[in-house]
Each structure stands twice: as structure tokens, then as C-alpha cells.
């Protein structure tokens, strides 16, 4: 089992799915001969040709719309938005056309398609190469939203997304593209959408997170190791649907919750989890639910600003202490 990076795992997932199923296509800007801005589609054009790997003009709305047309016709397009920050340009096609298709045709038509986009900050991208738009889409009925945190997960989740009969938005934390490395099996495996991953079991605190924050949580846990705390670390993997079962089971055990996410604090997915818990698991909560998230500002560029902006290891440590010492 070779160790590969997240971006390689993503490429492998597409390659294998395209080999397995003729209806899988790739479409987006520079995804063809060039292999994509982050090289996620490298080699696919050469292997599958221009009918299955389609370069588009700079037209995010058409990228989504054309993919939707293909999906209606039985293809399984994987559309790439070059940076998640530009998904705003295809917003209507996603929320009003794609997300609603099954609903408004009472199941007669549906959209088995994936929209992939490199997201999140940590690489000095500034306002327009750093965004975490998952909150908008988690609020939009009819699309699923995934953010992987490891190369292994990325492959299995992307395969699940491609095989899913509903539209899936797949945000790839670009900070992890080459930093996250795993032994990734070369054969076929699928990680079900909507299932969180308990990365570490524990009894004292449920630390719930996803994406690049998983890594900051892990290093926070290392810091906390000396303190003899038993922390359950949960990687959501799917932002929507949420794995309530896993979350609730954990909170019933620990009675303390820290939510860590890189999206803006206000109405990031942590808000929904906190709301669910305060509604459905009230009697299990021994302490306030603490959120560690980015502030409600755009993502700034300059290193000290971005550093300040991003939720960090020490914020997580502090939050854990807060619920422990409450």
C-alpha cells in the first residue's frame, strides 16, 4: 500500500471510477491536458480523452449547468471549480437548479453529480483563495456536503460521492493536498456519506471537527496528553447529512462538547450541531458547548492576519480546558 497525498488520492478516485463506469466524466477549467490547477485531474485527459475530460471556458455557472444537463442524461459528471471561492459564480445553478431537481420532479429526474473545489485557508491565499463555503450549502436542502481530512478518506468519500444519485459538493482543504499523506489501498473502497469517523475514543470531552481542523485538533490532543484527559475526537467527514447518531452517542458518554471548524463562527456547521444538541440532548450536557471557529470576517492575506484569523491548536486546548474546568 503506497503512501500518497490527498491530491493523489483524489486523482486516483476519479481515475478508478472512470475506469469502472463509462458514465463518469470530468469537467472544469484547465482540467484536461493541463491536469488542473492543483493537478488533481492529471493524466485523466490522456487516458480518457476529450469526450470524458472536458476543458471549459471561465464560466462557473455553465460548468454547473452543463454538468447538470449531463447528469440528467445519465452521465455522472465530476465538475471542478478551480477554487471554492469562485463557487459563488455558479451559486444559482447549484441551489436553484441542481439541488431542487429531484424534489420538483417528484423523483422523476435527479442529478448524480459531484462538484469538487479546493477550499479553506492556511496557504496565504487571501480573500479569494481561502474560503470555506460549506456553511451556505449545508443550509441548502438537496445537496450533500463533504470535507475530507485525510488522503484515505478523500479517496473513499469521493468514490461514494461519484456513485451517489444526488448532487454532492466535495470541498478539498487545499492546505492538506500535499500535507495529508496516507497508505491508500490501490483497490476499491468506499466510505459512506453521512458517517462520521471516531478518530480517538474518549470519555471526558467530545471534540467534533472536520477538514484541516482535524489536524490542528490532533496536535492539540498531543499537547493535552500529559493532562490525563480522555478526549473523543470525531471527524465529521460529511457536513451534510450530519451523522447525528455518532455525535449523539459520543455526547451521551462525554457530556462535554467542543466544536472546531474553520468556517466563520456564525452559522458555520458548529452552530447547527450546538443547536441540535441543545434541543435533543439537553439533559446530557454538563457544560456550555464551546465553538472554536474563524471570526466573522473575510479571510485576510498577510501572514500575521491569516494566522490570527485561523482557529489554532491553542484555541482548541483552551476550549477543552474551558469545558473540563467548568
Amino acid at each position, binding site marked *: 500500500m503506497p503512501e500518497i497525498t490527498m491530491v493523489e488520492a483524489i486523482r486516483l478516485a476519479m481515475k478508478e471510477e472512470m475506469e469502472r463506469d463509462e458514465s463518469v*466524466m470530468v469537467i472544469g477549467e484547465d482540467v484536461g491536458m493541463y491536469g488542473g490547477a492543483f493537478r488533481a485531474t492529471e493524466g485523466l485527459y490522456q487516458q480518457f480523452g476529450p*469526450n*470524458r475530460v*472536458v476543458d*471549459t*471556458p471561465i*464560466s462557473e*455557472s*455553465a460548468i*454547473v*449547468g*452543463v*454538468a*447538470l*444537463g*449531463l*447528469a*440528467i*442524461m*445519465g*452521465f455522472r459528471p465530476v465538475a471542478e471549480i478551480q477554487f471554492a471561492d469562485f463557487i459563488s459564480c455558479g451559486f*444559482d*445553478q447549484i441551489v*436553484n*437548479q441542481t439541488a*431542487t*431537481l*429531484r*424534489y*420538483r*420532479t*417528484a*423523483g*422523476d*429526474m*435527479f442529478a448524480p453529480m459531484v462538484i469538487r473545489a479546493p477550499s479553506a485557508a492556511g496557504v496565504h491565499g487571501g480573500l479569494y483563495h481561502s474560503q470555506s463555503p460549506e456553511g451556505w450549502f449545508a443550509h441548502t*436542502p*438537496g445537496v*450533500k456536503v463533504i470535507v475530507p481530512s485525510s488522503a484515505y478518506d478523500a479517496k473513499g468519500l469521493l468514490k461514494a460521492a461519484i456513485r*451517489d*444519485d*444526488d448532487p454532492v459538493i466535495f470541498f478539498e482543504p487545499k492546505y492538506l493536498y500535499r500535507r495529508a499523506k496516507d497508505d491508500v489501498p490501490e483497490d476499491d473502497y468506499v466510505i459512506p456519506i453521512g458517517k462520521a469517523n471516531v478518530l480517538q475514543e474518549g470519555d471526558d470531552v467530545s471534540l467534533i471537527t472536520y477538514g484541516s481542523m482535524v489536524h490542528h485538533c490532533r496536535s492539540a490532543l498531543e499537547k493535552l496528553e500529559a493532562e490525563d484527559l480522555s478526549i473523543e475526537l470525531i471527524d465529521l467527514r460529511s457536513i451534510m447529512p450530519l451523522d447525528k447518531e455518532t455525535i449523539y452517542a459520543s455526547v451521551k458518554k462525554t457530556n462535554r462538547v467542543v466544536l472546531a471548524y474553520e468556517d466563520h463562527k456564525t452559522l458555520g456547521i458548529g452552530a447547527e450541531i450546538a443547536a441540535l444538541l441543545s434541543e435533543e440532548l439537553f439533559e446530557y450536557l454538563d457544560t456550555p458547548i464551546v465553538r472554536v471557529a474563524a471570526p466573522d470576517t473575510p479571510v485576510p492575506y498577510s501572514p500575521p492576519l491569516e494566522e490570527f484569523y485561523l482557529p489554532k491548536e491553542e484555541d482548541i486546548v483552551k476550549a477543552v480546558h474551558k469545558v473540563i474546568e467548568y
Partner: protein
Amino acid sequence: MPALPKKKLLRLYHDMMLTRMFEDRLSKLYRQGKILGGLYLSTGQEAIPVGTCAHLREDDVISPVHRDLGAFLIKGIEPRFLMAQILGKETGPSKGRDSFLHAGSKRLGIIPPTSILASTIPIAAGVAFAFKVRGEDSIAVSYFGEGGSNRGDFHEGLNFAGIHKVPLVLVCENNKYAYSTPVEKEMAICCVSYRAESYGFEGVTIDGNDIFAVYDAMEKAVEKARNGGGPTLIECMTYRIKGHSEHDEAKYQPAEEKEEWKQKDPIARFKKFLTESGHLGESEEQDIIDKIASALDEAVKFAEESPFPPGEDALKHVFATNEEP
């Protein structure tokens, strides 16, 4: 011009009359409070869906918009199901889930409109691209108003279609108004067809109230699309005789202008031709009208007697996982 067999001519006439009479029923139902939400009629524009859809096969796909009621019927939705759709009934294609003509059919090749004007153009381009990728000779047809042609999706959709020379026919219904806004305030040019040049394919402007002009232009465009020649934009010049919707008195449309265009009514015009050329006798016409009328009676009855969907169905069909078992 009309080297068409009588049967075909009468079929076109029938379809135009069906559209007109269907909409007249809707107008009545609306006044009876049986249609909730907006009602947008195509009175005076019937030649466009009829003359274009006449060339389509079952495996072709259309993406109609709000003033294309005729297209739904000709592409195969039975009047009673369309009527049920418009009354919000369980038996309509959307099962009451969306309003008016927001109805699609995978089997019949109809992409359901959404209200978002022009948004179905890139989708239709994607459908046409699918045919091309598969090497099939089916085509896609995308309808839109001149107003919708000002949205970004028009630009992005046509550009993609032009690059890939997909089998797509773009039918613009230029009825001089977008809601209250006259065409001079919508664009600084006379003709939407000029815009096709920006995307490397042909655009033509024709008299949309002349069924033969529509029929002929579409024939060429369809043949070209089926044979790998890529897209064509057909701009059909017409006029919105009624208000934007049934609640709009449309005082902004000058009375003389409206009068002038009433004289150009596509159905009256076609009927004159058919009568004068001996294709349509009085009793034949009465026959057509009677048949349509009784089909519509049946359709209205069916729709009115159909149940509304049960409330709790509102939760269904968001994802495959909450489909009916």
C-alpha cells in the same frame, strides 16, 4: 414555403388552436380562483412552440419556459396531466410540488423550467453535449424570452454550446417586453439574433407570428444540429398580446401597438391561408375545435377531480434516500 401535406398543415393548426383554447380555459380557471400564483399566457405567440416542436422526435429534449405551454403538449404531456399540474394536483408531473408549467418529464424529454430565467440554457447545452458525446443524433432545444437573454447564463451557455458545436437550437421569443420593460430598455440592439455571432454560430431573426417562417427556420436548424453543424439561434419576433401575467393590466403597452399586433394574430393568419388554399373547410374547423373543446372538458374534469397531494409528501424526494419505497 408551404409544400406541406394537408395532414401536417392541419396538425399545426390543431396544435396552435389547442394551445390557445387550453390557455383560454386557464384564464377562466384563474378568474374562478382555481389557479394560485401567477398565470403567464402565450396568446399571440402560439406559432413558436408549435412550429418548432413540430420537428422534434421523442428522443429530443426541450427546455421550455413560462410562455411555452404549447411545447409541453406537443412534446407529449397529455392535456389532462398538464391541467392537473397547473391546478397543483397530485396527478400532474410535479405532483403539485411546483407551480404552473414547472413540469418536466424524463421520458418525454422535457427539462422542467424554474423561474430563474435563462438558467436552463446551460443545462440544455449540457444535454446537447451528452448527445454529442454519445454520438447520437438527438438534439436539444432551449426556449427563452428576449428578456432572459440578458442574463449571464445566456452568455455562458451559448459560449459553451458554440465551442463544442453541440446539437442545440436556441429559440428566442422576442415579444417586445420583459414584464413591463420594453425591449429598448433591455438591450441596445434590435435583435437578439445578433448575439449568436459572439459564440461562433448563426443567428436568424424571423417573423414569429408566421407559422411557416417558424417551421422553415426550425427545419434548417434541426437538420444542421442533427448533422453535427452545431447550434443555431432562431429569434422569433412576436408580441405579448396579454399582460405579463393574468393580474397585470399592462397599461404600459400602448393601445395602438396592441391593436396592430392583434391584426397579426398567428392563428387567424394561418387560418386565412388554410381556408383560402382550400385546406380547411368550415365543418373541418368546427370539428377540430369541438374535439379540442371536449378534450379540454375532459382535462379540466380530470384535473378538478384529481386530489391534491397529501401535506406530508412535502418531505419526500429531497434525496434518493427519501424516495417512496
